[in-house]
């Protein structure tokens, strides 16, 4: 089979997964009462009108009586909630695949924290916050791979020796230590020992000479209260963000120190994420390496007098790498769960922070639009990552696409 045929086949097989994921969220969504479903689709009502989605309101001519709420009736009809469930599913499917994923509530915590997001479509808001998360995820993935490949090989070669046990304890510690505690401790250490502000990791205080305000959200950058002479790359007090990726934007504006600074501040959160999810990959690398080391061709190579380091590197290492690629997708799905906590603790402007804010229930108002929207987005990212991994695997190991 040609490579492109394989890719097309995998793309076609993607459709049922996308529909299935959407159906699961639809089923869960169905458990909500009607006003919350309306809030999910059209945004939570503003604080001054909490009864916007009440089924009935006092009549205009006689306030003692209750009349049907026209807003409620109209929006119920728009979602097809007065129709049978299959019809509702159809409406939901159309909504999801045309990127109408609902709206951010006006009275929710997200809307309050980031004023610019209130009432905006969820997809647009997620688009603002996605680049930072992707950069963080990429950096964490690089750290995970860079640590677990050599360490896993080392552990396999020195099986049941101190190195192996140390690697095992380390990887399990990362797995067993709650991320919220670890990140809190790190933040505490940074604040008390080094004396940085609690905002340190969150946003780069990049303003050339002016002050920074943290009130508004502008594509991962803080707003800058500027001195009279604006640099050309600052538009209206904040950096223009053609791509939204903070590092890329900084490079586009030729602010290389700024890009470096952004990456440096990302390293600590990325390390914590990596520490928490290194176990999956490390154990897999070790075990697949152990299996390969027991195969006949390795023994043959050894018998033929090939030095042990070359056997480990060339013969066993290369062959265990193939299988390792397949768990990369699994690792990705696992460590993406860590984002809400890490971004919440460090105040990083990513989707995880958005999700963490949306479920804060102190006012009894969960932003269901964000909850469902970000879950769908994260899932589709994982699905996409799995697709890339599969294609990569097929490229590395032709047997996969030939079978």
């Amino acid at each position: 089979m040609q490579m492109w045929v394989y890719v097309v086949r995998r793309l076609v097989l993607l459709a049922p997964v996308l529909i299935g994921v959407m159906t699961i969220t639809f089923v869960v969504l169905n458990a909500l009462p009607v006003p919350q479903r309306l809030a999910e689709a059209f945004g939570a009502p503003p604080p001054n009108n909490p009864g916007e989605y009440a089924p009935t309101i006092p009549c205009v001519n006689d306030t003692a009586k209750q009349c049907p709420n026209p807003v409620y009736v109209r929006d119920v009809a728009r979602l097809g909630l007065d129709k049978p469930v299959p019809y509702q599913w159809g409406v939901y499917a159309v909504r999801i695949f045309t990127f109408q994923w609902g709206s951010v509530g006006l009275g929710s915590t997200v809307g309050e924290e980031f004023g610019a997001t209130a009432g905006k479509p969820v997809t647009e808001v997620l688009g603002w916050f996605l680049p930072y998360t992707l950069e963080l995820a990429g950096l964490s993935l690089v750290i995970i791979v860079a640590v677990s490949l050599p360490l896993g090989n080392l552990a396999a070669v020195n099986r049941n020796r101190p190195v192996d046990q140390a690697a095992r304890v380390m990887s399990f510690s990362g797995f067993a230590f709650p991320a919220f505690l670890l990140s809190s401790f790190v933040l505490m250490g940074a604040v008390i020992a080094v004396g940085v502000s609690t905002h340190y990791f969150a946003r780069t205080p990049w303003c050339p000479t002016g002050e920074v305000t943290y009130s508004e959200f502008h594509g991962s950058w803080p707003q800058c209260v500027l001195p009279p002479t604006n640099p050309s790359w600052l538009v209206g007090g904040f950096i223009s963000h053609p791509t939204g990726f903070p590092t890329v934007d900084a490079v586009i504006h030729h602010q290389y120190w700024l890009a470096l600074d952004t990456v440096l501040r990302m390293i600590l959160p990325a390390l914590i994420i990596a520490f928490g999810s290194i176990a999956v990959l490390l154990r897999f690398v070790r075990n697949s390496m152990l299996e390969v080391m027991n195969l006949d061709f390795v023994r043959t190579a050894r018998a033929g007098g090939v030095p042990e380091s070359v056997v480990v590197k060339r013969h066993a290492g290369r062959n265990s790498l193939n299988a390792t690629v397949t768990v990369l997708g699994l690792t990705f799905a696992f460590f993406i769960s860590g984002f809400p906590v890490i971004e919440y603790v460090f105040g990083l402007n990513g989707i995880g922070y958005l999700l963490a804010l949306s479920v804060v229930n102190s006012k009894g108002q969960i932003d269901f639009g964000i909850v469902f929207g970000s879950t769908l987005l994260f899932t589709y990212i994982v699905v996409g990552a799995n697709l890339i991994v599969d294609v990569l695997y097929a490229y590395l190991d032709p047997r996969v696409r030939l079978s």
Partner: protein
Amino acid sequence: MQAEAAAPTPASTPGGPPSLPTTPPKRQRRPNPRIAQAMRTWYFLRRNTLAMVGLGILLVLIALALYALTLPLSYSNLTPYCASSQSTPNSFPTTGPSTGTTVDVNFPNQLGGLTDGTYGFVVETSADYTPSPTQGTIRVDGAAVQVNVTFTAGGPGPVPVHFASSTPPGTGSVYAVTFVESGLAAGTPWSVSLNATSPSVCTPGFVSVCTYPGGSSSVGSSCYVTPAGDPSVIAPTAAWSPLGVGPLPLGSLTVNPGSPYFYNIWDGITRGADWSLLISASIVGSGALLGLLVGAIAGEFGGYVDEALMRLVDIFLSIPQLLLVIVVVATLTFAYPTIFGLPPLDSRILLLIFAFAVTWWPFYARIVRGQVLVVREQKFVEAARASGAGRGRIILRHVVPNSVFPVLVQMSLDVGTIPLFIGTLVFLGFGIFPTLYFPEWGSLSALSVGGGGTDTLTTFLTSCQLAAEGYGACVIPWWQLLFPGLTLFFYALSVNFLSDGLRDALDPRLRR
């Protein structure tokens, strides 16, 4: 199979691994192969240091849970305590102006009134007079109180202090307590002391308040003398005591630094053992049961059933687990505050178990299906089929028992992650338990840094930043951050070691 059976039985050397079951002598019931496999697994597990360490920690935690079962305590909420920053009984000596006539000593002036409760008092004057009564109790119960004190000339002077013990305050309203003097010569000083609860610190409405038992200047069982400045921060105390009352062996847990209320960490960890183990066991158990069912059906029936079920599993597995839990828990707890007419606590925990089980079954389904595909091709299943066994019998008697060990490995791994997940949910601000102070390890360690809408860590950090600028003291209650987290960590770590050892012991390829 036949040739293997004919081969001579490999004698198991004493101390060596128990041999795999071989053909037994005739006319003897064949021993259960699962028992032999379990013994073999145990043999290899015993030689794995880390797995044994894990097993030891786990056994200690289970013992803790069993110990907590014997304690007569409320299981749905941690017991709050109240702090006092005073080291002596809260007495309010009042010196009356000695006019020789009736004089009021008004306690509202000192305390802002007294709340409902019983207070001990003592009257003192110079040696020339004997007050009557010299001491006693007054009961403030919804009305102002007046005590008439008559002094007679000559007497023993100040009497030894024997305070009556106080009862917890009731409503929160305050009433005047007046001591009226008579019989004292002009110019003679006299005083009245009340041993009171300390209403200026402890607001009524809580279970416990600071009380000073009769005759002692040491505080009562539920009151703790705290350093000035931060009344809720109490370091671990050396003295040991059972749960609920007395000293705090692991220090205090506060979620609202600066307020006088706090919780006993040891109390929380012990009672959390019950809840954590129970919740994680029931979640993993129900998830495994569901996965076993789905996986067995998919593997045994094959074809379209298999294809459909496995696609469903794929879809579930592609949703990041924590997010699925968040979505399901958020939706269900919002939509169904109570289910089956149960109390809020029971409904919430049932919903929690359901929500987690929904996200957990696909892992088991996949494992069991793979196992079924292997087992169904084996000769003994073929033999069973040939002798007329139905599908249900084959699944129940052959397939399921043979998938028990891989499922067990996965279960032991998952049991450790559930408190971590619950802690994450609480940390993110979910009200997954009906009360914020629910004794559960994950919830406790989340609260220790700030969860459920509280911001403990930031408060402490702010205090330290202010201290660096010269205001106040930098208070970091390390015990609060350490002990709940350490419990959670050791629990998750021990089951991880155990499941890793189990996997190694069960997988002959990795054992070589």
